[in-house]
Every structure is written in C-alpha cells, then in structure tokens.
C-alpha cells in the first residue's frame, strides 16, 4: 500500500518510530495534489512551501528528542470556513475573496499545538449551504470515484481530498449533514460530534444552533485521533460543553458487548435507493454476527426533518449573514458607480414627479449594503437569506419559525425515546449515491430533500458517524450512518471501529 493510501494513525506510528519523516509525507501528498487536484479541485488554497517548512521544523524537534504534539507531523486539510490567521479564508464566497483572518479558530489553534501540518484549505458550498459543493463561487469539486459526479457537500473538498489521497486527515463542518453526506459519497469516514463537543470559535457561522466542526478520515481510528485533538471546552464559545474529553483512541479497540441497534422504519421508505438499502441491511447483519441485537422502531417526526430544518437553518443564516455589509470586512460594491446610479435614479423620479417611488428610494447606505450583497453572494446564499428573512418577518414568525422550533423538540423527543431502547440508531447516510454534476442545480427543493437522513441529528444536537459499507454496481460508495446519545462519541467510535475490523470497505481507494 502506498504511503498516501494509508490511514493517518498508521502513518503516525511510523512517524513516531522515525521510519518516515513529516517532510517525506508532505512531499508525497504534494505530489498527489500536483497530479490529481487539477481534476478533483478539492483545494481552494495551498501553500506547500509553508507546509514543508513546518514539517522540517517538526522533524528537527523529533530528531532532537523534544516533546511532540498528538498529530506529530501529520498533514491536515481544513475546510475553508475555519479562520486561519494570515491565510485567506473565503467560505467559497466572493464576498470574502480577500478576507485574511486576524486570528485562528480554536480548532486551528489546537491543530497547530498538536503539531499538525496544515496542507491547505478545502472547497465547499458557499457558506456551507448546499450538498454538492457546486455552490462554491470558485469552482466545482469532483468525486474521485467518478469525476462526472459531485463529492457531496458542503464539506465536498474535505471528503474528496481524502478519497483522492491528497491528505490523510480533514476537518469539515456539519450543519445538516455536511460531514456525513460527503463522507458517504466519497467512501470515507466522517463524524459529526454532539453539539457543544467542539468549539465553534473562529468558525464562520451559518446556523449557529446547528453548526458543528468534526473530523473526516479513512477509519474510525483516524476520526478518533482528530476528534480528541480538537474537542473540549472553550471559554470563547459559551455553547461548548464543559465536559472532559475522553481519549477516544485509547478505548477504540474494545468491542462493545450487548450492543443494541435501532432501525428506524421511516428511514427505509420510498425514495431510498435499493442498492443502498441492500448494503445497509447487510451491514446490520454484520453487526448481528458481531453480537448486536437489532430492534425496529419508529421516529414519527423524522419525516418533518427537512421542513423543520429549512425554516430554522435559513432563519439563523439570514441573521448571521447580516454581518456581510461591505463595511467591516470583505467585498464592497464600487461606491462611486453605486452613488452615480442612485443620483440618476433620483433625478429621473424627480422629473417624473413620482413622489411615491422617490420616498421608497434607498438611502446611499442601504443601497451600499444591497449592492454589495447582491454582487458578493451566490444564488443559493441569496435564496436562503430570502427564505430566512421571510420566515422571521412580522406576521410569519409564529407560523413558520416558532412552529419549526416546536417540531424540533418533537424530533429530539423521538431520539430520546429511541435511546431508551437502543444504543445507536443505524441506517443509510443518504437516500441515493453521488449524483451527476449539474443534475440538481436547477431544483433547490430536490437538492434539499437529499438531506433526509442527516438533518434530524443536527436539529436534535446529537452525534453521528458515516462509515463506508459497500458500493453500488456502478462503483459508487455507500455510507452507513450511526447516531448516538449526547456526548457518546466514545462508544460511537468503538461501534464504528468494530465494524471496520470486520469489513474492508474503508480500505478501498478510487483509481485516478
């Protein structure tokens, strides 16, 4: 197996034993990037020279016998929605094209402290809004298993760079499935932690009550390593949980005894691809042969997940994205052209003596905001700002937003009830495998419906993981989703590792 095909934890053992150096690793991934990123387009920003310099420094410290951080020279790719001090952070949006953060996100700081080598910033749907990475303002990322297909999203670059062997570890974010769905589409392992497990400080906000940062890797063990590095309380994020962080890698090899899995009836309804259903049912059988018992249960409100999500997430987004005003940072429209246009309009209305329209004419400041945002945001971001503004506006707040918050609690109660009976809820990560580029771009609602199995977890604030569990006949990866009780990532990872010791789906790599 070539270096760039191996799991990160395996590489780390060789780094620690000084069988390989961090410089060698960075060079190997840089070579893969040089050969394949023209086709995959996973990275928005690369600085191989800086990565090599960092790797050299880490190698020197290791050679001198100095203390070494947990990631000891492993390269890590970071989704371009986390602030990196001095490195452009765009959120794949034109409005942040030239934004250079003055500070590091807490997760980035922790990665640096753990001696990770940041290899690049990965492509995504603009402001993490989307499920295909086609909403990037810069370019589309392709799926390494079939480059005519999407890698999923919004963490599409994060999953694709792993699958293509261009990085061994990757940081993504998940607001409605944005780690788990691309992990499923690209045949890698991706974990969405319980809300509050990982600090969101320095994460550019999309929907603050749903956003969570998490790891992607080839194995559950890789995810365990990355999660134990980035998790924990942070005084700078008051919603981060003040709970100890388990050493997930330490307990990973313990198999779980008397494991109880719940199959949700509603997850196997119409719309589920038959090959995915077959692979998931086979995976459940694998668990049974490892001693698990399976119980079928109902989560009656799960079918309202998408509707609830597409009220709450856009509502929060419309409020969060108010900060892009062309004043504090980011893009600003051509001010002179804007003022000239406004003056001309005013003159025209004055000579037409149209008092009504004249009174409605934007002030220069309002027009500055509106033009800046019209030019800086892409269509999906505009759509969600519009949707969220509408559902929060006077007269509609109770009917939409407040109603959605109540259904959100019912969704959470469905989970609470399920977890009285089972340890994990298990099912498909996605209803269908990776779709063709351009297939759903004209139909926003069809794209939203793809999030069917993932959004309820974010609404409830719980943790979940997607692990590879097979392939379609045409060779596209399939993901198995396990969902857990709040802060039960330790056992979630054990359950995933148990499956990966019994199967080899996670060892498959695409041929590029």
């Amino acid at each position, binding site marked *: 197996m070539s270096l760039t095909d191996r799991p990160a934890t395996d590489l780390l053992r060789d780094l620690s034993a000084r069988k390989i150096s961090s410089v060698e690793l960075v060079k190997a991934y840089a070579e893969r990037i040089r050969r394949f990123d023209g086709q995959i387009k996973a990275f928005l920003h690369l600085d191989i020279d800086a990565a090599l310099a960092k790797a050299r420094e880490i190698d020197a410290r290791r050679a001198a016998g100095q203390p070494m951080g947990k990631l000891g020279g492993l390269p890590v790719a970071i989704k371009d929605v986390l602030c990196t001090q001095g490195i452009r952070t765009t959120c794949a949006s034109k409005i942040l094209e030239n934004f250079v953060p003055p500070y590091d996100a807490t997760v980035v700081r922790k990665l640096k402290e753990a001696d990770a080598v940041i290899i690049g910033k990965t492509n995504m749907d603009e402001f993490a809004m989307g499920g295909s990475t086609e909403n990037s303002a810069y370019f589309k990322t392709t799926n390494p298993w079939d480059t005519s297909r999407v890698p999923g999203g919004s963490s599409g670059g994060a999953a694709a760079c792993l699958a293509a062997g261009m990085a061994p570890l990757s940081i993504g974010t998940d607001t409605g499935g944005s780690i788990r769905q691309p992990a499923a589409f690209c045949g890698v392992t991706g974990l969405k932690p319980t809300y509050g497990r990982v600090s969101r400080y320095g994460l550019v906000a999309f929907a603050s009550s749903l956003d969570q940062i998490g790891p992607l890797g080839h194995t559950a063990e890789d995810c365990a390593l990355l999660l134990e590095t980035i998790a924990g309380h942070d005084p700078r994020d008051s919603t981060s949980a003040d709970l100890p962080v388990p050493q997930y890698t330490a307990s990973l090899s313990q198999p779980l005894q008397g494991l109880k899995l719940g199959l949700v009836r509603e997850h196997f309804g119409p719309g589920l691809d038959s090959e995915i259903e077959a692979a998931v049912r086979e995976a459940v059988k694998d668990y049974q042969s490892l001693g698990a018992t399976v119980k079928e249960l109902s989560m009656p409100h799960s079918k309202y997940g998408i509707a609830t999500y597409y009220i709450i997430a856009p509502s929060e987004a419309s409020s969060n994205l108010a900060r892009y005003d062309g004043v504090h940072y980011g893009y600003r429209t051509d001010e002179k052209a804007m003022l000239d246009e406004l003056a001309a309009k005013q003159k025209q209305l004055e000579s037409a003596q149209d008092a009504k329209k004249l009174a409605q004419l934007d002030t220069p400041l309002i027009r500055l905001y509106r033009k800046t945002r019209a030019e800086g945001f892409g269509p999906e971001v505009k759509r969600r700002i519009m949707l*969220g503004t509408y559902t929060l506006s006077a007269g509609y707040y109770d009917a939409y937003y407040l109603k959605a918050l109540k259904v959100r609690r019912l969704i959470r109660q469905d989970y609470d009830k399920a977890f009285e009976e089972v340890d994990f809820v298990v099912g498909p990560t996605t209803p269908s495998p990776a779709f063709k580029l351009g297939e759903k771009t004209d139909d926003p609602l069809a794209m939203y419906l793809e999030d069917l199995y993932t959004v309820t977890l974010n609404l409830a604030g719980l943790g979940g993981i997607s692990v590879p569990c097979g392939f379609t006949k045409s060779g596209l990866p399939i993901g198995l989703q396990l969902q857990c009780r709040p802060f039960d990532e330790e056992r979630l990872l054990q359950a995933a590792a148990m499956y990966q010791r019994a199967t080899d789906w996670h060892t498959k790599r695409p041929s590029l």
Partner: protein
Amino acid sequence: MSLTRADVEKVSLLGRLLLSDAELDTMTTQLTRVVGYVEQLGEVNTDGIEPMAHAVEMHNVFRDDALAASLTRDAALANAPKRDSECYRVPAVLGE
C-alpha cells in the same frame, strides 16, 4: 400559500439584497415551492410543546469581569474595504 413578486421584493429590502427582474421572477417561483413544502408542519400537533431554539438549553454564561487581550484597532480594521486611521468609512448617512 403563494408568494407574490411584491412580497419577494419587500423581503429583498428587509434582507438587504438587490434582486434583478429575472432574479425576482426565479426567486418568487422557488420560494413559493419551498414555502409550500415547509407548510406541511401545519399538520403536526404542537399544542403544549415548548419551542426548542437550541440543542444546548442554557442561559447566561458568565465569565469573570477581568481584562484580557483583544485585537488591536489596526488588526480589527485590517480587512475593512474603506477605513481611515481609526474608523470604518461609509457613504454619508445624513444629508449635507
């Protein structure tokens, strides 16, 4: 319910967006479909259910009232599209 083009135009002002005629048309069609879809929540009985705004339902997280380092003014202004030595600059808000 169906959104009118005038509704969409009004929302675009509230959301501080400026939409072209073509965008207003597309947006009206697309938002009508999405709003039509989310209205299925109307069939859920939510009597007596407390709204859940957040997964972590805590309030008032305090910290000690102690001085701590923060960004310098220059660092905070560094990304501003237009600034002077100490402020963000915007078009005149009040008349001459």
